[in-house]
């Protein structure tokens, strides 16, 4: 247990190790630790931000969906209205067409009836003349009695 030069040797060795540690060991290790701490903090921040973004996106999606539902409902309503309108218009047109057809038919019928009456009247006049001839057994002057026959025919 002698005190000797070993003390000096130990002081030199100790100084060397401390200086080496201070220059080449401590800074890189604590640097890595600090950097990791920063990374973790950033990671947590990013997670928070992502959570917030997700909430915002969900909210936006909900409101978008609500809006498009409203739009769809409006479009359907409009389409229904238009369809009713089209049906009404078609009904109207059909009714007009029917009226027109009925009127035309009526006119034709009237025309046909008139024409038949005319023909009938002419034939009756002839028949009456022929009948009268037969009855009189004599020839009748057609031109002298034409006025009489026509009067007869008009009465038919």
């Amino acid at each position, binding site marked *: 247990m*002698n005190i000797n030069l070993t003390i000096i040797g130990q002081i030199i*060795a100790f100084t060397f190790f401390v200086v080496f540690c201070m220059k080449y060991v401590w800074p890189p*290790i604590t640097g890595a630790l600090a950097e990791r701490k920063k990374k973790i903090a950033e990671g947590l921040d990013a997670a928070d931000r992502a959570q917030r973004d997700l909430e915002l996106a969900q909210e936006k999606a909900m409101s978008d969906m609500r809006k498009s539902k409203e739009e769809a409902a409006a479009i359907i309503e409009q389409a229904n209205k238009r369809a009713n309108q089209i049906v009404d218009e078609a009904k109207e047109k059909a009714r007009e067409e029917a009226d027109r057809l009925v009127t035309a038919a009526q006119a034709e019928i009237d025309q046909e009836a008139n024409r038949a009456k005319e023909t009938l009247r002419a034939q009756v006049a002839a028949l009456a003349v022929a009948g009268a001839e037969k009855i009189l057994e004599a020839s009748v002057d057609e031109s002298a009695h034409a006025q009489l026959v026509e009067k007869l025919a008009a009465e038919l």
Partner: protein
Amino acid sequence: MASEMTSSAYISHHLTNWTFGAHPENGLSFAATAQEAAEMGFWAIHVDTMLWSVALGFFFIWIFRKVAKTATSGVPGSTQNFVETIVEFVEDNVSSVFHYKNALIAPLALTIFVWIFLMNTMDLIPVDWIPFLTQKIGEAFGADPHHVYMKVVPTTDINATLGMAFAVFGLILFYSIKMKGLGGFLGELAFQPLGKWMLPFNLFLEIVGLLAKPVSLALRLFGNMYAGEMIFILIALLPFWAQWLLSVPWAIFHILVITLQAFIFMVLTIVYLAMAHEDH
């Protein structure tokens, strides 16, 4: 070996350092006996203490430098994880006690803690293994095995603990003067705690207190480790089949002691240096 020599010779052999120095009669030589080592006085060096402490110091900076070179802020490997745990432990201790800006204190504390821990850990190697091995090696080189000394625990050598304590003391003086100026430092010694009318008393008290710091640092570590080593040596004197009954519990207890002593040395160093920075 205990069978080859008397118990006291065995103990004293185990407590003698491998010394190289200037012997008054033999000149520069390795001391063959404890007495020769004592006769060399101050101009001698304990080769085994230097060898083991420097080797362990290099082991420390090798491991830590390896991690520092590849240190990543990503996922750490197992060695980096282990080293980071120690670094953070030291950093926590430093930042809880030492509130000044000083790039030296934390690396200093780390070096003290790990180096002392490694030196203390040599105590857990069974006391006879390395001395026996070196005796055989010495014998192979033609030396008398009884004159081959090898003390493997540097912290059981008062020179090693005093060396570190003096280095810390130097830092205490340096920072005291740097932070407070020479006048401030001397004023602190002269005018506290009792004011200027009690100057001689203050000076005496403060200087004793100042000197007590390195001395207590060195002696606390040395005393604990020396006593622990001594008990291992005494246990080694028992019959071989009975040794484990005592050496195992003592070794397990000693794990606590070696860690605790390294920790205490570190914390007290930080505290002393914080006090040196403090301006009253």
